[in-house]
């Protein structure tokens, strides 16, 4: 064995849809470790390359079309190549550039940009089988001679051609310098760049800033990220140097906007002359044939609706048994702990806090897994782009794109996977807008609230002979969220996400079969990220709310309530009745404790704020207690109104129907029931959703904003509902 040498660092880069992930898996033998680059939501994936004599680590760069750093993905990629990130403090030793062999011309745009980074590289032509099937001929040796670096034809999904790449990376010595970049720029550009490099060398700059690669990017992208960083670090003298270099370009009559693309695509043409041969008449590919049906104006829409129906069913119904199973299991676990442990704070902490909290995190997993299984398959096979193409028109006016459709649709089942699914939206403003609107879709956690209120207060009358009034009300509740979301989208577009209409330029990649290993790997990553990051927040909030409902706990409350029952229990004619009375007493004690808990006091405190909605302090408190999750309100109402039933129980419904204000008026009237439902339709009472927004945006501002604006909406909506209904119903 060779003495311990430094691990070789290999970066993998390429366009989206080039099968980069597949090649990553083939080279490393497993999925790799997924983390985030500090401060941005760009994934950092690394793994050791398998069976190497010289240990090497593979770093997967985000897929992109150009390194003109506009998005966080592209900025991270440039920084990794410069060795300018905390996670990657040195430039990689070698760069593997992946290009789609069936779409080589456009792929070489990014590839030639990467070849200018000054890092030794090899070019991997992936999916050569598809290219061959399309009648495209490729001469890898000739191309290799022209770019001065190895070119490997590979078929990533079958693992063909991977071994030579691995052997090349495992050679005794890696190339120490990059070949001369293949793209010819006009002489004036090279002069301007030389001038800029010279000036920068004389300035006191951090070393990555002196890199000719960064200076080249600054010169090519007017007003881009590279320029901003250089000016930030180099100040006035740097600005001056850039101005001089630009003046030199202008003097030679060069248009800086078109310069790069023209030079690159012209050079790419000559690089590919006699290397790439296309059939004289373009053959209809399998993808073209599939698209004739899937993008057909009628048939295509039918398939689209069918696919969406399956997605929805999958997260809404198919994951229900698993969710019920998890809930039941945690319920049983709680009961068991209650049974074997003495009554007291520790038991309550375990059952009401820890077990309920962990259960509350894990219960979302089936939906997250179901949705991501589907999204992964749709994304990898190429249909996701088609779905976005078909649906785009509906969203473009709202400042979003067709990419928002699936995240919003999934949010009808649960906003958590929906928000996690916004990762497929490229434009950051559209992505944020979608995240802000997703929690307004009527998720399944609202259903228990609607069920309880409708069953208790809406008469099961028939309207127009066929329609059930309860059903109509339920449908209305489902429509409230989306209707408000449309209005909010328009408002956001004019305020928060103001700016030019986001562009929608999207490749429709060829269809291909998704690889189970790639899909499975992504599922595990997503689930792990949710449990680790969002899970801790959800658990913490659950514990906090538990403590606020449990404490303070003076002994005399139980004694007082107990004393009131003691006589009648004593006097009970038989054991059955005594047992019933004891159960009633225990509920009364639980209720008394909750009323005087910190949360109960909070309920009194906020009563003035919820009075205009028709609520008393008890409803207000139940709503506050449901901050961890909306459906918790049902259980809290149960505790407060001394019933242990769920939303379907006649006992709880009866208790609510007979609840009164202190002066004897009924508490829950039809306007109050509606005001509660509308509040829950619009509020952000879901710690898990807020935690996921925090994780996905990498900031606390967005979850705080979501909570604030949705709570305001919910209050206003409930206020209008209550006051209007009171007016009409008297």
């Amino acid at each position: 064995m060779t003495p311990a040498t430094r691990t070789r660092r290999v970066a993998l880069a390429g366009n989206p849809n080039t099968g980069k992930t597949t090649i990553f898996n083939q080279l490393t033998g497993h999925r790799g470790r997924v983390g985030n680059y500090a401060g941005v939501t760009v994934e950092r994936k690394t793994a050791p390359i398998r069976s190497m004599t010289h240990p090497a680590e593979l770093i997967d760069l985000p897929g992109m079309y150009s390194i003109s750093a506009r998005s966080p993905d592209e900025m991270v990629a440039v920084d990794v190549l410069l060795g300018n990130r905390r996670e990657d403090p040195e430039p990689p030793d070698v760069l593997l550039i992946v290009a789609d062999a069936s779409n080589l011309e456009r792929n070489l745009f990014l590839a030639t940009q990467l070849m200018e980074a000054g890092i030794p590289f090899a070019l991997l032509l992936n999916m050569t089988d598809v290219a061959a099937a399309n009648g495209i001929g490729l001469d890898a040796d000739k191309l290799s001679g022209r770019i001065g670096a190895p070119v490997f034809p590979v078929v990533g999904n079958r693992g063909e051609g991977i071994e030579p790449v691995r052997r090349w990376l495992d050679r005794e010595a890696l190339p120490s310098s990059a070949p001369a970049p293949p793209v010819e720029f006009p002489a004036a550009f090279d002069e301007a760049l030389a001038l800029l490099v010279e000036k920068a060398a004389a300035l006191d700059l951090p070393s990555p800033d002196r890199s000719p690669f960064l200076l080249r990017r600054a010169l090519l992208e007017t007003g881009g990220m590279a320029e901003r960083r250089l000016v930030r670090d180099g100040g006035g003298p740097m600005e001056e140097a850039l101005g001089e270099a630009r003046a030199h370009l202008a003097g030679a009559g060069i248009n800086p906007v078109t310069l790069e693309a023209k030079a690159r695509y012209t050079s790419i043409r000559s690089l590919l002359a006699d290397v790439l041969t296309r059939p004289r008449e373009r053959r209809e590919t399998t993808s073209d044939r599939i698209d004739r049906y899937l993008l057909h104006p009628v048939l295509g829409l039918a398939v689209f609706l069918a696919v969406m129906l399956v997605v929805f069913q999958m997260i809404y119904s198919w994951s229900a048994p698993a969710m019920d199973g998890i809930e039941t299991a945690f319920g049983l676990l709680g009961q068991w702990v209650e049974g074997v442990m003495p009554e007291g704070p520790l038991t309550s902490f375990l059952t009401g806090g820890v077990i309920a909290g962990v259960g509350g995190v894990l219960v979302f997993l089936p939906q997250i897994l179901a949705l991501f299984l589907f999204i992964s398959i749709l994304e990898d096979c190429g249909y996701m782009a088609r779905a976005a193409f078909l649906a785009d028109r509906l969203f473009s006016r709202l400042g979003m794109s067709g990419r928002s459709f699936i995240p919003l649709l999934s949010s009808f089942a649960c906003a958590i996977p929906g928000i996690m699914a916004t990762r497929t939206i490229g434009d950051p403003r559209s992505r944020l807008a979608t995240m802000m609107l997703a929690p307004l879709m009527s998720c399944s956690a609202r259903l228990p609230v609607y069920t309880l209120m409708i069953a208790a207060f809406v008469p099961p009358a028939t309207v127009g002979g066929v329609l059930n009034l309860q059903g109509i009300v339920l449908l209305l509740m489902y429509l409230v969220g989306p209707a408000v979301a449309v209005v909010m989208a328009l408002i956001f577009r004019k305020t928060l996400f103001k700016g030019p209409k986001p562009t929608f330029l999207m490749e429709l990649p060829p269809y291909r079969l998704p690889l189970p290993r790639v899909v499975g790997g992504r599922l595990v990553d997503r689930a792990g990220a949710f449990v680790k990051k969002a899970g801790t927040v959800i658990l913490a909030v659950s514990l906090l709310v538990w403590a606020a409902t449990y404490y303070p706990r003076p002994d005399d409350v139980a004694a007082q309530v107990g004393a009131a029952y003691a006589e009648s229990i004593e006097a009970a004619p038989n054991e059955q009745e005594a047992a019933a009375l004891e159960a009633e007493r225990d509920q009364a004690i639980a209720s008394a404790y909750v009323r005087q808990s910190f949360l109960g006091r909070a309920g009194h405190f906020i009563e003035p704020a919820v009075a205009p909605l028709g609520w008393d302090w008890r409803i207000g408190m139940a709503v506050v207690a449901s901050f961890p999750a909306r459906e918790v309100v049902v259980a809290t109402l149960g505790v407060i109104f001394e019933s242990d039933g769920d939303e379907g129980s006649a006992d709880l419904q009866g208790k609510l129907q007979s609840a009164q204000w202190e002066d004897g008026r009924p508490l829950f009237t039809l306007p109050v029931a509606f005001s509660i439902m509308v509040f829950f339709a619009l509020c952000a009472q879901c710690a898990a959703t807020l935690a996921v927004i925090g994780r996905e945006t990498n900031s606390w501002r967005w979850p705080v904003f979501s909570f604030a604006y949705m709570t305001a909406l919910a209050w206003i909506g409930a206020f209008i509902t209550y006051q209007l209904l009171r007016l009409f119903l008297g």
Partner: protein
Amino acid sequence: MAANLSELKKGERGIVHDLSGEAELIQRLLELGLTDGEEVEVLRFAPLGDPIEIRIRGYNLSLRRHEARAVLLEPTP
């Protein structure tokens, strides 16, 4: 005769002559290969008429009519 890409009908082809519009849009269109002299073909429209799917440099790209208007075509004889 179509002056820009948004005016082509399904199945029609044109040659890119120039791009006009915001610098960022132009830059992105250029990066994706819509340089002058290139042939574009309109493959289809989405069911609601927008966006458009085109073929350029051997691959399929979708863009909205608004963006297609930025792609000026060479006058055909």
